[in-house]
């Protein structure tokens, strides 16, 4: 059944006609209930509580069940948005969750971390009527959480095992969604992960207060239930090479090794003690649990912490610093708030928590004491100039205007480059000058036919949902490629 036919089903038509469009659009957008900002910046628990069933059903009423649902164009995996929302309106929450899972492997994750205001919600027809868009992300989270909490998690139908072995490099969202799809098609899938934990950025990067690890683990257990095997502490290209995998009978390899390499600014004093990448900071805190007293990994608990950058990673770092006891937790960003790439909700939450925003400020030097520990940061004051290649107005220096602020910790969050381990170790791959792997846009196949790739290793830094979309695309294409080779 295609989406037009689905929409024409009697239950949908009836529901649609049960209320006037005007009545629907007049309902104000639901507010996500959240922990009190003063309390939450002293704990690590999730900020948002999630919607109640009543609130979710009320919000679902706002959706007009459009004949041409433009919202879906904004979703990189094409979630059938009106269908899942109408299931919620009817109170059929498990059906809603099932709809989500038709196209997304990790709805509980995406409902929380997708930049909805730039994707699905940006295309909602409500905006054209000068109303707030339907809270698609909140509803997605609601349905996924409801299913998990109900204990009635639908196990997908898995095809007869076909005995063919497939390897996945990296257990981030790209690798997980690829693994799930291949397992459903009957392949014998093994995921190899370099770290000692499964989940990629979902575990070592995004903090607990935004995405609790337990939810990621549920998704991983679901994959285990359909036969996916996980091997941690195993670096492909080092512990085992792709050649060895091939010799071992693996028919295909999907590389989802992510963008692990932190970028620095190459300014004076950047190697002082107390200056670190957000990857180091978040890895210490999230993966190694360094802030808890029984962990052996140390982390420096700064009192005056400056985070450089304006993306999600920067927001996560600065809010983590606040939670770890910083009196001043500062964002220093070289453009203005409008250009910040972080999710809107995170910026909003950060402000509520008392994070200071120093925009149009670009660090040019760190100053340290005689023990080499950072004590000050010099900021160049900027102003906005002409739009650059990214379409954002580019920051230009205001000549001679600088500011020096006192800090005891600085976290550099100015982007990441692709993890170089695979590009370095696989012969024949085509690599761009940014270090990403070149693949065919439609199939995600690389220049080495057995190797497919997706996620941040192909895109540079992107999003969870794009990485998942790549994984799904690659799974479909690899299945086709393997079957072609057989016939």
């Amino acid at each position, binding site marked *: 059944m295609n989406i037009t036919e689905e929409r024409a089903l009697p239950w949908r038509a009836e529901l649609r006609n049960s209320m006037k469009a005007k009545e629907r659009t007049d309902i104000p957008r639901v507010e996500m209930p959240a922990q009190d900002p003063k309390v939450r910046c002293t704990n690590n628990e999730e900020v948002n509580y999630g919607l109640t069933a009543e609130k979710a059903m009320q919000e679902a009423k706002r959706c007009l069940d459009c004949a041409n649902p433009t919202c879906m164009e904004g979703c990189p995996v094409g979630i059938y948005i009106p269908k899942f929302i109408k299931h919620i309106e009817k109170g059929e929450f498990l059906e809603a969750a099932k709809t989500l899972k038709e196209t997304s492997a990790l709805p509980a994750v995406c409902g929380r971390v997708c930049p909805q205001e730039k994707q699905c919600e940006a295309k909602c027809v409500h905006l054209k009527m000068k109303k707030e868009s339907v809270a698609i992300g909140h509803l997605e989270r609601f349905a996924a959480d409801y299913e998990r909490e109900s204990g009635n998690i639908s196990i997908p139908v898995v095809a007869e095992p076909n005995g063919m072995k497939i390897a996945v490099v990296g257990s981030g969202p790209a690798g997980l969604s690829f693994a799930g799809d291949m397992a459903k098609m009957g392949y014998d899938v093994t995921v190899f992960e*370099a*770290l*000692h934990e499964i989940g990629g950025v979902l575990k*070592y990067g995004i903090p607990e207060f935004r995405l609790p690890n337990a939810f990621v683990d549920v998704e991983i257990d679901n994959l285990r239930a359909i036969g996916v095997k996980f091997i*941690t*502490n*195993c*670096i492909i290209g*080092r*512990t*085992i*090479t792709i050649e060895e995998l091939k010799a071992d009978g693996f028919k295909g390899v999907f590389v989802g090794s992510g963008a*692990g*390499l*932190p970028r*620095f600014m*190459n300014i004076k004093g*950047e*190697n*002082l*003690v*107390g200056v*670190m*990448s957000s*990857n*180091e900071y978040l*890895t*210490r805190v999230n993966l*190694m*649990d360094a802030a*808890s007293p*029984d*962990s*052996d*990994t*140390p*982390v*420096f608990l700064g009192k005056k912490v400056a985070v450089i950058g304006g993306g999600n990673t920067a927001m996560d770092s600065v809010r983590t610093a606040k939670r770890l006891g910083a009196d001043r937790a500062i964002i220093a960003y070289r453009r203005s708030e409008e250009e910040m790439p972080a999710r809107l909700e995170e910026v909003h939450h950060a402000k509520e928590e008392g994070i200071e925003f120093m925009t149009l400020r670009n660090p040019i030097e760190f100053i340290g004491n005689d*023990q*080499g*520990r950072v004590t000050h940061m010099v900021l160049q004051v900027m102003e906005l100039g002409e739009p650059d290649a990214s379409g954002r107005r580019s920051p230009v220096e205001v000549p001679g205007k600088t500011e020096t602020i006192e800090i005891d910790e600085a976290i550099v969050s100015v982007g990441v480059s692709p*993890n*170089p*381990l695979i590009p370095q170790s696989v012969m024949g791959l085509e690599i761009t000058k940014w270090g990403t792997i070149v693949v065919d846009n439609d199939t995600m196949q690389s220049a080495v036919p057995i190797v497919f790739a997706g996620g941040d290793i192909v895109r540079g830094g992107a999003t969870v949902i794009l990485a998942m979309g790549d994984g799904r695309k690659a799974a479909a294409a690899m299945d086709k490629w393997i079957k072609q080779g057989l016939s």
Partner: protein
Amino acid sequence: MFEVEAPLIAKSRKAGHFVMVKVGEKGERIPLTIADADLAKGTITLVVQKMGVSSSKLCNLAEGEFITDMVGPLGKATHIEKFGTVVCACGGVGTAPMMPIVAALKKAGNRVITVLAARNKDLIILEEQMQELSDEVIVMTDDGSYGVKGLVTNGVESVIQREKVDLCVTIGPAIMMKFVSLLTKKYEVPTLASLNTIMVDGTGMCGACRVSVGGKTRFVCIDGPEFDAHQVDFDEMLMRLGGYRDIEREDMEKMKCASGVN
């Protein structure tokens, strides 16, 4: 010294590689050089010096116990070829990671002179193994309790003064490598130093291990651990190594209290 079962790592490791090891659920990930490997048994050998919490936890494991997590081999392998005469200068726990390099250099046909240095006689390790692998071993102790009295640099200098040296390799405490490097620079002997910076992941993800080499920031875990010693900013490295000293000391005190040892 530990022998650890890790058949895949044993198979793919080369001289100069290291592994990241974590003991216990809440353990720290620490880098350790693969000192040796036995392909038939599928094991690798690690030599560990008790420094702080993590190395002590590892040393306290009894035979047959498990290391919670171990991953590798990491880092770039040592570039081995026939250089001619090579002086391998190692101090303290740098002796262990030097062993596979000495073996590989010897196998490639080099004349290898190993300088083993430590504060006193009791801290000299692996002497017998080094004697077997090298053409000559010079033992140096700070207090003269064994071998020649003097620092590692005195030992290296005595060799450079008596014969032509084509390459020097140095592994040990950063301060020692700094002085070896200053010395060989004076004599224009090309020198490799294997840097033991603080690491977190060991896979290029965090940048904790960064050092300045020739004015550029490099990551020891993926670009190293060996670098042209004359290009390394040892003063910056020493400063960074001290970064967590206070926290580590507190943790060590806590562990001593908890286990009742001192």
